Each structure stands twice: as C-alpha cells, then as structure tokens.
C-alpha cells in the first residue's frame, strides 16, 4: 500500500490558481493600500474599535494592528457625557417638548453625571494600563529575542568550520 498510496499523494490532487485572477497579488495590493491608509490615519475611528471586538482573538499576531487598535480604543474609551443640542421634529408642540426634554435631561444628568464621569476615568485607566503592559512586554520580548539571537550566534559553528 505504501508505495501506491505514496504515488497517489505525489501526483497533484488538485490544480492551483485560475489563469486570469491572481488573488494573492490582489490581496497584497489590498494590504498595501490598507498599510498606507493606516499610516495616514484613515482608520483612526472608534467605530472600527467596536467592529473589531469579535476579531480580537484573531489579531494576536498582528503587532502593527494591535498598536493601532489600542489607539482606537483610546478614542472610544472616553464616553461623551457633555451637553448636546436638544431638538424636536414635530412642529406643533416643539417648544413645549424641547423644554420637557431639557428638564428630563437635566434631571438625568444630575443623577448620572458622577457615575458616567467615574466610568470614563475607569475606562481611561484601563486603556492606559493595557497600553503600558503592551509596551512593557513588547520591549521585554524584543530584548529576549535579541538575547536569543546573540546566544545562537555564539553557539553556532562558524562558517569556516
């Protein structure tokens, strides 16, 4: 069996690539575009940080992306709790409804401002902690990699040997 099965596994089971679409090249082109846009700040957007929540587990090896993701996280960590313009689309009762909404907002703000501002502080502290840890471990790993290279160079036989 061995030789026959080996023969089978040596012969191509499948053929590779369609003749007129090189998707490897297309993906490289897409990734190059992304790298350029990322450097230009096109993706510095809190919406992307939110969109990536289900993808974080797959980004563990993407050093550059994680750095970028942490920047996005910094943007999104600070929840907007400031006042905003209160409007009413329904014409007839608009002035009354606007006053009512303003009253509700001022009551809500009175009770929730302290909570949300503390939450913002917590968010900010967590992001800072994650950034610091990331920086610290990145530096430590780089130092260890350099040390491993150094030791490998010391232990490897010279070219002349």
């Amino acid at each position, binding site marked *: *069996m061995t030789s026959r*099965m080996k023969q089978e596994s040596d012969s191509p089971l*499948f053929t590779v690539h*369609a003749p007129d679409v090189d998707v490897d090249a297309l993906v490289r082109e897409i990734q190059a575009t*992304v790298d350029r846009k*990322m450097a230009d700040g096109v993706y510095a957007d809190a919406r992307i940080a939110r969109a990536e929540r*289900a993808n974080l587990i797959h980004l563990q090896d*993407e050093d550059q992306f994680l750095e970028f993701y942490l920047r996005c996280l910094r943007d999104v960590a600070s929840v907007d709790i400031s006042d905003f313009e209160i409007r009413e689309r329904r014409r007839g009762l608009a002035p009354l409804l606007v006053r009512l909404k303003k009253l509700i907002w001022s009551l809500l703000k009175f009770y929730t401002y302290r909570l949300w501002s503390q939450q913002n502080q917590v968010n900010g502290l967590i992001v800072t902690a994650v950034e610091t840890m990331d920086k610290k471990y990145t530096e430590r790993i780089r130092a260890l990699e350099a040390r491993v290279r150094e030791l490998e160079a010391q232990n490897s036989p010279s070219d002349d040997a």
Partner: protein
Amino acid sequence: MTSVRHIAVVCPRFADGATVGGAETLLRRLADRIAASGRQVTFLTTCAQNHHTWENNLPPGQKKVGALDVIYFPVDENRDISTFLRVQESISNRGAVTREDEEIWIKNSVNSQALCDHLKTQGNAYDCIIMGPYLFGLVFHAAQIFPDRTFLAPCLHDEPFAWLSIMKDLFGSVRGFLFNTEPERELARRLFGTPDERSAVVGMGLDVFDAHPESFGHKHGMTAPYLLYSGRREPLKGTPLLLDYMDAFRARTGRDVNVVLTGSGAYDVSPELAPHVLDVGFVSEQEKHEAMAGALAFIHPSVNESLGIVLLESWLARTPALVHARGEVLRWQCARSGGGVWFRHYPDFETALLRLMDDPPLRARMGEAGRAYVEREYAWSAVEARLWAALEILHQDR
C-alpha cells in the same frame, strides 16, 4: 472496485430536511453516492435532530431513505450535562484539563450505547465503516469497536478539542482518514502525526446549477447590492463579526450595502444596521442559489471550516467571496481558485469590499474562476474517483 461491497456510515445526525450541518451533509452525500454506485450502504445515526438539545425526537428503528438503509438509535439520556459543560468550558478556554477530565468530557458527550451495541454485534457485516465528525463521544467510542476497518472523516479544525490527548488515541487507532482539504490533512499531520499513507483528500461533490442573478432581488424587493452569508448564525461561524463589520462599513463609507442571511440561529444586530439586514431563514436550495447569484459577494467569516460547502456553492453561482484570513481552509480555497480574497481585520475588509464594489469586471472574473474551479475539483466524477481510490487502497492494505 469489488472488495468494498457493504459500507456503514456513522454520523450523530442524519442530514434530512431541516437537519443540516456541514459534516452531516458531507456524510449524507457521500453515502448517497456510494449507494448509487451499487454498493450497499447502511447509515447509522441517532434519533436527534437538534444539535443543541440532542433530544430523541425521531422514532428509533430502520427506514429506507432513497437507496440508503438508515438506522436511528436513541442518544443516551444518562449524560451528566452540567459536568460535560463545565469541562467543555475549561477546554474551550484552553484551561488546564487533565486526562481524567478529558475522559469525563467524552463520556458525557453525545453518545449512543445502542448504536455501539449494533456495531459490536453487526459490525462484521460491514467491509468498512466511515464515520465523523471527530469530536463527538459517539464517534470516539464507535471508532474503537472495529478500528481496523474504520475510516474517519474528521472535519477537523484547529480548535481546543483537537488538542486533547484522547484525540491522539482516536487518530492513532483508526485504519484511515478521508479529509476534505489539504490544510485539514496538514493539520492532522501536525497534531497527530497521521501518515500520508493512511489518508486521502476526498471532499464532497457539488451538482452544477444555474441561477438567475436578479430573481432573489425581485422576489424580496431589494434594489441595493447585498453581501450574503448562508449557514448557522453563531459566534463560532463569525456572524457577530460580519454584522459588526457591515455596521461600520455602512457608517464609514456611506455605501448602501445590505446583508442577506439564510440559515438559522439568533444574532444581535444594531438598530442602525437592522433595517438593512434581510433574514430569510431556511430557504429552498433554488432560492439559496438565487440569493448567491444575486449577491455582490458571499462572505464566510468562519475560521473553523474543513471544506466550506456554501463557499463552493457561491462560486457555482459565479459570485466572488470574502473570507477571514485566519480560516486556513477557506483562504486555501480562495487562493487556489482565484474566486475570493481574504481579510485580516476591518480595514482589509473595507478596502476589499470597496474594491469589489467598484470593479464589476473583477467580480465577474473572480466568479467565473470560482465556478471553473468547483466544476473541475468538486464535480462528483472527480470526488468519486478520489473516494473509490482511497477506499480501495486503504481497505486492501489491511
């Protein structure tokens, strides 16, 4: 081929009607083709249809389905589900799990003593036994009854369950393997050292179809382009990622692209995206093919696939695909066919989708390339040739 005349196929569920799943569909279709070739096929399965509850809601006993003799056996009801779930959670989180825990987990997984008893008493009647997928107690225990005539169609993914030490025993004991793709075979080689001499890449054949690209849009009154996902909607399949990405894509680019979902499963969608998601649930094969034909692209964000049946179907509908770069099998299919591109993260996704939207000739070329690939590699004639060769060689050299 004359030596393999009577084959048993073992699968925890029998793909029939609403009971669907990739592995179930694969084994059912292979069984149908084997039976159509004149061989006798007995399909051994359980009375369960729901892959969450595993409730025995079909009557036990034998039934003729087409050319198949299907025998339904009850799922064991003495499972300790809370223990099973507790250990499963540890495994899923890649926590510390002892050999004893693994054995408790598989013992309390989906099992059927009645099915195993049938194999013990009647198993000699089968020239070979094909079974899968690998991670069910039923398959794990059934494989140990006649390991020298068992061929595992594992539908293997790189997931925490694949790293259990008991799985090394399973993969080390059976006669041979029927893999779906080369990356799946490579994964088994890496994890279990499965020798090439005992394995073959077979896959599943697909029937060529033609579907009108405008039928689905007309039927549902859709004028905007849409991305399509077909299959189970759950985190493991990447559904939350798809919906989060599309929410961000619409908000950031201002492009009017909808999402169409076929299949089953609950999901959360933001209020902003909700009006742009059309969930048609289970549809007929014809409607699914029409939905595929009319889609801007088919999206398959799952990283846990061993073949990608719906991806291949979307190519038959001449629709290009977007897949997750971490899904080795789907990325491999895209690279070999020229029918799809892969994304690592949202920026890749956005750029790739914009590129596909703005370049209809590229989309058409990719769709054609995908279709040509499926017609070539996954025609039943090609799959059957691989299957007969594998069964004959693996069986004869016992």
